[in-house]
């Protein structure tokens, strides 16, 4: 019933104790679409992203990825929590890139990329290595297969992290402020990889403060504040002609 959308969020609510972080967020993302989530820190955009692959458990509302309810099984009118194994199977289809890269420091770049395909998807090792090398050269790191994360720059680490997520052949990629922890001069190389990925037709949700990237690459832009979606639309429209006062103040500070 939700087949036409890759991601469908219906009135998603999330609270940490008494603190309500998401107050009914609804949005749809079509296959191949690139959606940028912007907003001030604490607006709930990262939390919403983490809900999509069940790193956070939603308290109310429903989240579907490719028509499949996230985190729960619906039988009759009751919801059952998914077993860890089932939740893991859902996450396998959703790639995630973190602000702080979260590469595995004890593994080389190539080992980082092939670990999950071999252990989780049971891909043959030789095949995983071949594909891993392809992915690393695709993100411009053909010479860095055997480097440990600590020997790579921030931009290189983030590109390895993108290759690592892509190695699982996800149908959806989530980016949680992928360039916020980078030196300004390294931001471009990561955005280049993301732009190339968007052009290849990947469905992407990107939490970012890079308005230039949002305007150039995104199909839709959503502005969140205080746990709700304030405004959404074509990036150029929202950025150049914001309708709400809150959006205007925010954009005047970041643009």
């Amino acid at each position: 019933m939700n087949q036409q959308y890759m991601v469908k969020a219906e009135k998603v609510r999330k609270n940490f104790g008494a603190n309500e972080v998401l107050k009914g967020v609804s949005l749809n993302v079509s296959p191949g679409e690139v959606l940028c989530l912007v907003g001030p820190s604490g607006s709930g955009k990262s939390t919403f992203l983490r809900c999509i692959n069940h790193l956070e458990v939603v308290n109310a509302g429903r989240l579907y990825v490719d028509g499949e309810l996230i985190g729960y099984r619906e039988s009759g009118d009751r919801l059952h929590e998914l077993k860890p194994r089932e939740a893991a199977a859902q996450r396998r289809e959703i790639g995630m890139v973190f602000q702080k890269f979260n590469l595995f420091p004890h593994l080389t770049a190539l080992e980082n990329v092939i670990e999950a395909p071999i252990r989780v998807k049971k891909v043959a090792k030789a095949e995983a290595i071949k594909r891993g090398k392809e992915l690393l050269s695709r993100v411009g790191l053909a010479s860095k297969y055997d480097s440990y994360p600590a020997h790579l720059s921030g931009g290189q680490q983030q590109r390895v992290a993108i290759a690592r997520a892509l190695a699982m052949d996800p149908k959806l990629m989530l980016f949680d402020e992928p360039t916020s922890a980078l030196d300004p001069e390294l931001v471009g190389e990561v955005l280049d990889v993301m732009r190339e990925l968007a052009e290849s037709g990947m469905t992407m949700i990107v939490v970012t403060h890079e308005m230039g990237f949002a305007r150039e690459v995104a199909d839709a832009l959503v502005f969140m504040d205080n746990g709700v979606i304030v405004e959404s639309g074509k990036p150029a429209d929202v950025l150049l002609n914001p309708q709400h006062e809150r959006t205007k103040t925010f954009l005047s500070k970041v643009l």
Partner: protein
Amino acid sequence: MGSHCGCRGFNHHQRKVNPELTSDSNQNAGSQSADLHSDLSEETIKAIALRHPLRNIFAVFLLIGLVAFLVDASHREIYDWPTFSKYLFNHRVLSGVLVTLQLTAYAMVFAVLLGIVLAVMRQSPNPILKSVAWTFIWFFRGTPVYVQLVFWGLLSTVYPSITFGLPFVGDLATIPSINNLSLFVLAVIGLTLNESAYMAEIVRAGLLSVDRGQEEAAKALGMGWGLSMRRIIIPQAMRIIIPPTGNEVISMLKTTSLVTAIPLTIDLYMATRDISANTYKPVPLLLVASTWYLVFTSFLMVLQYFLERRFARGYAHMGLQVQDQPLEGLGGG
């Protein structure tokens, strides 16, 4: 090597400064002073070293004391070196060495496994699992290992047999006699339970040292708890776990000498005690025991060094390696 690098760094600095200088004469002056400086920096400094008279006097005293001790010990009657050499490779001593090594190995292996279970239990959201683990650690760390070993020796007196049963159903199974457990097994149990309490805390510190983002990244890749523990979390925790565990193994090797409390009397220490009870020469046999303990603790120290190096992969010498490698691929995309 060092002066060469310094020179390269200086030139680099000079390149940055030059564009700010506008007139030709200034530029010449700049490069002249650069030459002057680089000549200086290539010349190795020969300065008169600072003297440390007190430190040197202390070192000489120590040396004199040590030599005096060794010379004296070499022909002091009571050390009885002929007896020492006679019993160093005595078959009772050697089989005692074997028992000590076996006790150490079994107790440590089981203690590490139980320690991991306890550490994971302590992090469990289930309050019962958590408090059972806490109480276990509290008890076994809080009482002396010697006392615990005496207790395990008395186990068959305290629990002559153990029967499992259900109310209204009756007895299901009985372990007839704890007497059948050998003293060796009781010693391993006693040492294991005590050690596992310490290992649990070491493992817990290791697990807590791994960034939470690692678990999330593993989760996001579709890894289950067991897989992410085995492949991601524990290998990283090992870096923190290994050094104190090495100390624990060394400490365990020596703690095995307390199994006489059980009483197990076939380990290295008791073997030498038995022999000296017959020969009336306790000192050379204490030296025999000490020698063997030292041999194996030294071996363990070397082993620990290599293990630490193995698990430091991806961490050691970060800054150096980055410099050595050309920074290519930076502009890619």
